[in-house]
């Protein structure tokens, strides 16, 4: 290993790598695109909250409630610092999926410029995960708005040639992924963001596959909303983030109604607190927010630029190796430009499920199927792919075992 990136040390923080897989094999975890593993620091942060600070936030004036509020609001401040945005612009949700549904329903309920009327247009792309397609598709169905989308090129980029027909003055919302969770391709969002703002639409970035893996400059991107999931960023399950520009959050109606999001309540009506509380009804996922803050701190300490270049080294090595295996085709971008650490491939004549099953025998965890992006898979004329996705705890040796297992899968069925 020539890289200065100390993956051996990092790996020691993740207890799961001590577990034995089927047949006593060590774990080669290449499914971080689905969910990441957790360092001990994150587990400890959650346990510390439960053991020392646990009480309902915002609702008590006793000592423990002060500690809980401090821990929870401190977590919010740390997420805000990580993204370099204002603390009051950070909303804790349960997942990126909830963040996106929150946006769609809030727009549906809001009056004014953000409200959705019949004939308004909503724009997505063929790259989208179901979580960034279905909320908009169903919003269109409910409101009489029209769903439009950018088509995908075979290399996983978006076809921007018809951008003027796709983003028109009727457009209200453009929601696009920063990085495809299937192909690893990074669409050229710059012109799309500009076109959206040109017509007065808001731009929603699905950062699920980018925020945990590379530095993001929200101001430079000039986006309006960003979503990501904690569990893909070394954080706990059960927590996601929605970031939105303050003046937009101010105009938006709530998504969930309940305690702590109100200003006044009578039996017949209610008024709402300011953001972020307006969007956080009920006793929140306090321990998970605290755990996510610890995860982001861990990522910052290792350094996202370093993590990103390490992942790209792994990706380059894996791509090279896959291309040398006869019968294997990499799907999507072939090189390492405009992509992240996610690779999809197929093996001639084999179903991804069968490929994944043999690879599992080597201790290799990869995902197979449509990866919750069925329209993309159909567009490629496939029924599924096998996908490997990398993160900071993957070693070069993982890639060697990965390649060996791909070879093994091909041979297993070929020789029988």
């Amino acid at each position, binding site marked *: 290993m020539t890289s200065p990136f100390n993956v051996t040390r990092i790996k020691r923080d993740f207890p799961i790598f001590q577990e034995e897989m*089927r*047949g006593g094999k060590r774990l080669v975890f290449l499914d971080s695109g689905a969910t990441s593993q957790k360092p001990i620091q994150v587990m400890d942060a959650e346990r510390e909250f439960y053991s020392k600070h646990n009480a309902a936030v915002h609702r008590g004036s006793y000592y423990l409630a002060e500690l809980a509020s401090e821990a929870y609001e401190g977590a919010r401040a740390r997420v805000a610092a990580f993204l370099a945005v204002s603390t009051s612009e950070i909303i804790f949700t349960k997942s990126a999926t909830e963040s996106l549904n929150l946006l769609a329903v809030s727009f549906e309920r809001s009056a004014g410029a953000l409200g959705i009327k019949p004939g308004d247009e909503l724009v997505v792309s063929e790259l989208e995960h179901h979580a960034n397609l279905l909320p908009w598709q169903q919003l269109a169905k409910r409101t009489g708005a029209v769903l439009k989308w950018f088509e995908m090129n075979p290399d996983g980029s978006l076809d921007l040639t018809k951008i003027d027909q796709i983003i028109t003055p009727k457009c209200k919302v453009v929601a696009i992924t920063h990085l495809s969770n299937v192909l690893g391709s990074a669409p050229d969002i710059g012109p799309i963001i500009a076109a959206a703002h040109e017509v007065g639409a808001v731009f929603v970035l699905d950062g699920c596959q980018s925020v945990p893996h590379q530095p993001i400059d929200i101001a430079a991107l000039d986006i309006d909303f960003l979503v990501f999931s904690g569990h893909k960023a070394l954080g706990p399950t059960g927590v996601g983030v929605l970031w939105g520009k303050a003046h937009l959050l101010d105009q938006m109606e709530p998504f969930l109604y309940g305690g702590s999001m109100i200003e006044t309540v009578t039996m017949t009506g209610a008024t709402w607190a300011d953001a972020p509380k307006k969007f956080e009804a009920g006793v929140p996922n306090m321990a998970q927010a605290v755990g996510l803050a610890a995860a982001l701190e861990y990522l910052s300490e290792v350094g996202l630029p370093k993590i990103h270049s390490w992942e790209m080294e792994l990706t380059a090595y894996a791509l090279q190796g896959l291309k040398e295996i006869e019968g294997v085709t990499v799907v999507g971008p072939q090189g390492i430009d405009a992509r992240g650490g996610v690779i999809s491939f197929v093996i001639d004549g084999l*179903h*991804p*499920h*069968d490929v994944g*099953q*043999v690879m599992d*025998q080597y201790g290799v965890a990869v995902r*197979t*199927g*449509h990866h919750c992006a*069925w329209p993309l*898979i159909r567009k490629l004329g496939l*029924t*599924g792919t096998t996908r490997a996705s990398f993160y900071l705890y993957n070693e070069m040796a993982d890639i060697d075992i990965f390649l060996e297992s791909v070879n093994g899968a091909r041979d*297993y*069925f070929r020789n*029988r």
Partner: protein
Amino acid sequence: MELDSLYQEVILDHYKKPHHKGVPSGNFQVHHVNPNCGDEITLSLKIKDDTIQDLVWNGVGCSISQASASIMSDLVSGKSVPEAHIALAQFTELMQSKGTIKGDEDVLEDAIALAGVSKFPARVKCALLSWMAFKDAAIQNGARL
């Protein structure tokens, strides 16, 4: 290798040369999908004189789902509805057994080769896809299953 208990010879044979695969037709066609992986099956059949006839299926999927469809078609074709019912019930039980039972070869014939699937919970749905499609089609044909 544990894998060989999953991918038995007879399974790969059925996978490579599936039986009863064709162009489903007629009034009683069903279409089932496995939303986890996108596998699909279309299946049609006829029930005449309380007997399963003209079973034809088509679809895309992994070796397990394809082989299972082929084996199931062989097994139930020409059988009476009550016989098919017993096979279906035993096969479902076998799949959910997590490797604790072996299956009755007299009833299940080639389908006992799928016993190994039950040790791989994520694959059980692959094996059951065609059986559920068969059940659905038969019910639509008026069978009590």
